[in-house]
């Protein structure tokens, strides 16, 4: 958010002054919310006014998996003395289905829905998907940025988001100082999130069995998750054409870190098949043995991020790399490359390539063997598995006649996972596969000032 706010200022549009009472009232209200002091009145003709960055996004996965339609607005008000207010709003509408961790079998499988009050059946030879979510997410943010003296800059803000079963509240602050003729900027940021999970049917106890319809005895009440983030960064101007940035980030999560809707199958020690069960007469319930996933209640991540922007006779190369490691034994590498290629004065093309790879969490399990003691933690969430991902996209941007900016981008995202052969046995070999993913990202953006 802090970074985003900074970018918006730099990328602001030349706009005519306008004395808008609603905007002024909104700004004043937000200062009050942020605990700031309202700025002294300034002459209208010196007010740069509001700039708006809006976008419409479609994200769609193949095989009827997750679809998301999202509308976002980022409104930035700049003031004299480089002070700036940024307000953000995003509304997402999610539908579709997602793999819940159950293994594909040669027979049909019946699962109890997350609500605990119905069942659904996955046909034989089909990857089980949970299709019961339909969610709307609303996220808001506010950020205030101002210089402190000649060399320091302070920004702080808050964010909140609400889904049917999840609430996020966060605050953040960042202080930066320029050195070396403003060629070097050192910054330190701190963010704190207090999230609460109100899972459909209640969050299940880690590694407890999926129960029959109507039995909610293994469900907990509302659960919490706290996240502390620290970001330390250095930005350096190297030459007239090159600027680089290096960040170290520390993130500590604690609380209920399970995905309450993910399960792990209990498999036979010889055949590898999911162990069948029979619900009591007259009761609907699971056709096989499953347990809800269980993750540790803490997670500590360290990220090292480097970025370079290089100007090459009108074209701009944006290259970044991130290494992340955590105490769940997940290591990941991300390389992101963009080349902005101008087409005349007011249009450009921007090809984008992103490469990602991660190792699996140390408690990632495709199934738990029947009769063996339960481990402390287990999850078959595909996002904690060993996989590679590639994003390839193209963006086209242009300036409108009245000086505003529009862009469209189309990207394809592909995940290909790997379950090591020695993790599969019996009938699992050739049947159980990582749930590969193909998705399309289409976004239209319009930036305008007043």
């Amino acid at each position, binding site marked *: 958010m802090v970074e985003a706010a900074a*970018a918006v200022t730099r*990328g602001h549009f030349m706009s005519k002054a306008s004395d808008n009472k609603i905007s002024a009232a909104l700004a004043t209200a937000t200062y009050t919310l942020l605990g700031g002091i309202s700025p002294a009145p300034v002459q209208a003709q010196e007010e740069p006014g509001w700039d708006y960055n809006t976008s419409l996004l479609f994200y769609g996965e193949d095989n009827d998996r997750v679809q998301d339609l999202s509308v976002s607005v980022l409104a930035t008000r700049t003031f004299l003395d480089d002070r700036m207010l940024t307000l953000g709003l995003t509304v997402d509408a999610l539908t579709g289905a997602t793999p819940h961790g159950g293994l594909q079998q040669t027979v049909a499988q019946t699962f109890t829905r997350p609500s605990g009050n119905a069942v659904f059946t996955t046909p034989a030879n089909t990857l089980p998907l949970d299709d019961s979510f339909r969610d709307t997410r609303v996220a808001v943010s506010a950020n205030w940025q101002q210089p402190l003296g000649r060399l320091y800059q302070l920004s702080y803000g808050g964010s909140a988001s609400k889904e049917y079963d999840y609430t996020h509240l966060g605050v953040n602050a960042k202080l930066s100082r320029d050195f070396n003729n403003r060629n070097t900027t050192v910054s330190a940021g701190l963010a704190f999130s207090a999230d609460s999970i109100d899972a459909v049917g209640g969050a299940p106890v880690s590694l407890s069995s999926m129960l029959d319809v109507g039995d909610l005895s293994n469900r907990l009440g509302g659960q919490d998750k706290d996240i502390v983030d620290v970001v330390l960064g250095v930005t350096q101007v190297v030459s007239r054409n090159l600027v680089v940035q290096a960040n170290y980030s520390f993130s500590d999560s604690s609380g209920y870190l399970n995905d309450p809707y993910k399960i792990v199958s209990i498999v036979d020690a010889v055949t590898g098949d999911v162990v069948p069960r029979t619900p009591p007469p007259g009761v609907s319930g699971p056709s096989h043995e499953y347990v809800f996933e269980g993750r540790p209640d803490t997670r500590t991540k360290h990220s090292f991020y480097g970025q370079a922007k290089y100007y090459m006779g009108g074209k701009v190369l944006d290259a970044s790399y991130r290494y992340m490691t955590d105490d769940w034994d997940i290591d990941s590498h991300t390389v992101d490359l963009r080349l902005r290629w101008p087409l005349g004065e007011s249009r450009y093309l921007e090809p984008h390539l992103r490469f990602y790879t991660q190792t699996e969490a140390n408690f990632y399990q495709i199934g738990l063997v029947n009769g063996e003691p339960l481990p402390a933690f287990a999850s078959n969430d595909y*996002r904690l598995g060993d996989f590679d991902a590639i994003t390839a996209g193209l963006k086209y941007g242009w300036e409108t006649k009245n000086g505003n900016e529009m862009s469209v981008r189309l990207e394809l995202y592909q995940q290909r996972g790997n379950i090591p052969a020695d993790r599969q046995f019996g009938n699992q070999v050739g049947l159980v596969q990582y749930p590969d993913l193909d998705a399309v990202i289409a976004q239209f953006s319009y930036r305008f000032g007043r």
Partner: protein
Amino acid sequence: MKILAAIGMLLLMAGCSSMGVEAWDRDILAKDEMQLTTDALEAATDDHIYFSKEASSGGRGFGGGGCGCN
């Protein structure tokens, strides 16, 4: 680890002090397309997508909140 990081930071800053440009040479660096984040909304969108689909987040800025359960 922390001491090493601090020493690294100091060395980096010492090295950086000989780099850079004068204020009147910032014409290119001042361009919109040369900012570290050129499109804040696109960056936020991407961060949320990858946060929801992968086990990593953050790096450029804060990791951010939200469920990312789907």
